[in-house]
């Protein structure tokens, strides 16, 4: 305890994280000192510039492979790939969050503290500018996610989890319309998220106990130590299994895997749609990035123990997502269950113990993120006087009213259904192929069977849009301004390009698919 060695820190490798977090702090200052009418522009520009700068640093760091900041952070292929993915998808989400052309004043409430459904609340729904705190909150969340996928010990991972979760709980509560639903969603998300975090933390403690007593090592929760402990710790394996299970609960909660998925439909429905898109794309990347690292690096030696359990979770997730999606009548809830089912497919990729499996999972995350953001971008556009018209019956005949946007949405739905020439098909192949190769035949069969079920709800929406006659209540699609259009077009184009020419991104993913240990 006498000599304390300063850990070496490679600031260049950490720069994306530092950029995002310092921009978030700067954003707080902007809230304090910049005049109200300028804040929106300043904040949005600041956030976008920070994302671009961080992305540039990720690209510049592309060849770095190191563990830095003590044992806390691993900057390696998967980290950089997933950080890049989070930043690109976050940029799209920021475009959606920043849009004020679709709804007067933006999708966010002007004053969060006003009691829901009160007269004051109704007044502020009429078009006062939304609060600009959303930008620092989002930037904090992005920063947390960047740490989450890089974390190389469980405590750093826990802190990162909290850093990106807390802003998300708040963001969920800020919807301009349907305030009660939004606040309920935030409350639910917060309570369940807090439980999940507690589980995670308890798991960390048990694992710490498990690592005690390995000859020649100090107890710790960094992944190298855990990995060594898995093979030769003298401690009881009960500690290991219980710890792994508790950690998995925390991570699977964020990934929205069954049976830890119950928050997903409510939160996706209640949260402001741009935030929903942000969660569906970026949170998924972050959660699966962490899952991959924890199970492929820390617990790689316990492969035989966790694979059957996670396999059951994967099958359950696919089943719950697919079957319950069939009964949904609200487009946002439908997309939520679809996101749950997709978490199941991603878990199939996590359980493919090979470089191809890892690459396939990372490819899937990127492809799905683009599609789902584009899907939610369309959801923000279909609206009437009361805000978004999310009930499916309202979408009847939309293809007649607004063929262009209906066609885009149809394309995205076909991608979700896994029709070839869309990224959805390529990503399914990217995870199912390595899984089958790794001997997980039953997971692939479950995946294929649930895909059949899941095709039905997507098709129902297509039928609604194109084959039904427009009703009295069919809203028109609001023609979006530049920001939402850009996000939508990027999402759709990426879905198409990754479906037709997936080779470049696959190469990139395969090249990156190796953890440093």
């Amino acid at each position, binding site marked *: 305890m006498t000599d304390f060695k300063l850990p070496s820190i490679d600031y260049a490798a950490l720069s994306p994280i530092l950029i995002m977090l310092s921009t978030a702090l700067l954003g707080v200052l902007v809230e304090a000192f910049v005049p109200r009418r300028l804040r929106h522009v300043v904040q949005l520009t600041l956030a976008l510039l920070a994302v671009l700068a961080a992305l540039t640093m990720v690209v510049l760091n592309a060849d770095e492979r190191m563990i830095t900041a003590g044992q806390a952070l691993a900057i390696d292929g998967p980290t950089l790939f997933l950080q890049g993915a989070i930043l690109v998808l976050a940029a799209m989400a920021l475009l959606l969050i920043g849009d004020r052309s679709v709804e007067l004043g933006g999708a966010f409430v002007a004053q969060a503290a006003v009691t829901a459904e009160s007269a004051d609340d109704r007044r502020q729904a009429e078009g006062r500018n939304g609060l600009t705190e959303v930008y620092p909150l989002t930037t904090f969340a992005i920063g947390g996610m960047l740490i989450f996928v890089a974390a190389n010990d469980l405590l750093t991972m826990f802190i990162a989890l909290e850093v990106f979760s807390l802003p998300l709980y708040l963001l969920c509560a800020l919807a301009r319309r349907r305030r009660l639903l939004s606040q309920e969603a935030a409350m639910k998300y917060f309570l369940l998220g807090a439980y999940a975090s507690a589980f995670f933390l308890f798991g960390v403690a048990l694992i710490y106990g498990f690592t005690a007593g390995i000859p020649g090592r100090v107890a710790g929760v960094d992944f190298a130590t855990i990995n060594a402990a898995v093979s030769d710790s003298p401690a009881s394996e009960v500690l290991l299994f219980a710890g792994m299970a508790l950690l998995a609960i925390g991570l699977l909660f964020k990934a929205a895997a069954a049976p830890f998925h119950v928050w997903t439909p409510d939160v996706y429905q209640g949260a402001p749609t741009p935030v929903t898109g942000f969660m569906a794309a970026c949170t998924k990347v972050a959660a699966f990035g962490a899952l991959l690292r924890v199970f492929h690096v820390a617990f790689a030696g316990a492969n035989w123990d966790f694979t059957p359990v996670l396999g059951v979770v994967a099958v359950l997730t696919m089943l719950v997502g697919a079957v319950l999606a069939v009964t949904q009548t609200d487009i946002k809830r439908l997309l939520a269950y679809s996101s749950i089912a997709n978490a199941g497919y991603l878990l199939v990729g996590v359980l493919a113990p090979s470089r191809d499996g890892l690459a396939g999972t990372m490819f899937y995350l990127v492809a799905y993120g683009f599609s789902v953001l584009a899907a939610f971008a369309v959801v923000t556009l279909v609206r009437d006087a009361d805000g978004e018209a999310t009930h499916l019956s309202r979408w009847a005949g939309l293809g007649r009213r607004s063929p262009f946007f209906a066609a885009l949405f149809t394309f995205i739905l076909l991608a979700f259904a896994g029709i070839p020439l869309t990224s959805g098909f390529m990503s399914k192949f990217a995870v199912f192929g390595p899984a089958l190769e790794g001997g997980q035949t039953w997971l692939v069969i479950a995946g294929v069977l649930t895909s*059949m079920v899941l095709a039905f709800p997507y*098709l129902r929406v297509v039928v609604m849009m194109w084959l039904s006659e427009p009703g009295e209540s069919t809203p028109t699609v609001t023609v979006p301004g530049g920001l939402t259009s850009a996000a939508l077009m990027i999402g759709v184009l990426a879905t198409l390009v990754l479906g037709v020419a997936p*080779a470049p991104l696959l190469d990139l993913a395969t090249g990156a698919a190796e953890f440093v240990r």
Partner: protein
Amino acid sequence: MSNFPFLSVLTVAPLVGALVVAFLPRHRPELAKQVAFVWSLLVLALSVAMWVSFNAGGKRFQFRESYSWIPDWGVSFTFATDGIALVMLMLIAVLVPLVILASWHDAESSKRSVPVYFALLLVLECTMIGVFAAADVFLFYVFFEVMLVPMYFLIGSYGGHQRQYAAVKFFLYSLVGGLFMLAAVIGLWVVGGKTFDWQALSEVDISTGTERWLFLGFFLAFAIKAPFFPFHTWLPDAGGAAPAGAAALLVGVLDKVGTFGILRYCLPLFPEASKWFAPWALALGVIGIVYAALLAVGQNDLKRLVSYTSIAHFGFIGVGIFAFTTQAGTGAVLYMLNHGLATGLLFLVVGMLISRRGSALISDFGGAGKLVPVLAGVLFFAGLASLALPGTAPFISEFLVLIGTFTVNKPVAIIATLGIILAAAYVLWMVQRTTQGTLNPTLTEVDGMRRDLNLREKVVVAPLIALIVLLGFFPKPVTDVINPAVQATMDDIGRTDPAPSVGTVQEAAK
């Protein structure tokens, strides 16, 4: 000329045409129709050039092209055609212009965009050509699935009564089959050492258990697509609801993908499993022949009736394929072509009749021949071709299937022969109730029924009638192309034809 990249150009050309047509102004429907028609004629001309430069006695796969696509997975754009695929490509190229011509006014009756209808037809042509021209299993799967999308919208947006239900049922059935195939495709990729090249995969040894599962995955997809009994229930709905032109393509070409897939993928890639499952497949074929024919007799809706006759015919094709003799195999392939011509014609004519009467119900007709004699005559001819009257092309194929089957499996051949009798029943009874007999007085009050075939419609039916008669008397140009490919397929599964039991020629030679 044989170095010309026929297959890729043929695949891409209709897609380019579709884009052109789709972006024509919506208020100029005539222009869209003309462009689509001329475009499909260009595709036909190119196909004819390909037919001419195909060397029937040459290599099994010709016009091979290969371009890298996803090297990580061993996927490439590989096109190649054997005689079987070539015949189907020709069928597509011939049918599409005729369907476009026949559908000239179909899209107008719906409230939807006319150019989009013709663009969808061209997209469909692109995917149909692609599915037959692909020599890479992944590429085949891509076309197999994408094919659903234009057809779905053709049925769903431009179809008749119950179109939504029919379109969704069609899509879901096909998608379910396709996903089973996807699992098998991935499995094949894994056991085949991460390649999708047909040639390489056909040389891979697969363990018996795995081979059977993979066969089942592919077979299920193809059996739903074809469709074979008991996976057929979507076809009468889809065929009944689709606009006549789309229905002609659906039954004439799209469904052949199923039987073609069995010949190209199931048999050569999984020869042992094919033999193991053959009795079951034969049983499905025979049941289909009799069952669908019986249902056809009972139909009161013209398009549904034609759909059921098709299911019966697919039973014949299935029997022909799984009899594993060259004669039956050739017969099955020839049947695929002839059925496309005859049923295509039947669908188009029935469509003309329905658009005049404004009803598809047989009971709404009666004695129509007195009002529209030429149309009634063409319907009669199409019916006769469909029941395989000697002198029409289907007769030859049906006969080949039956004698080819008889040499190896007498009971199946005998039961299948029942199908011929039933075919006579459903066709003749249908013709009698619609065009013969006393005139249904309400018919005279319908304006449309006073117009006989106009020039456009005559141009539609004439080439089909000519081809059916020509191939009925002189099928040699086609059989020359088919035979080597069928022979090669039979070699793949290691079956040789049984020697004739009363072999006088052989004994004389001794």
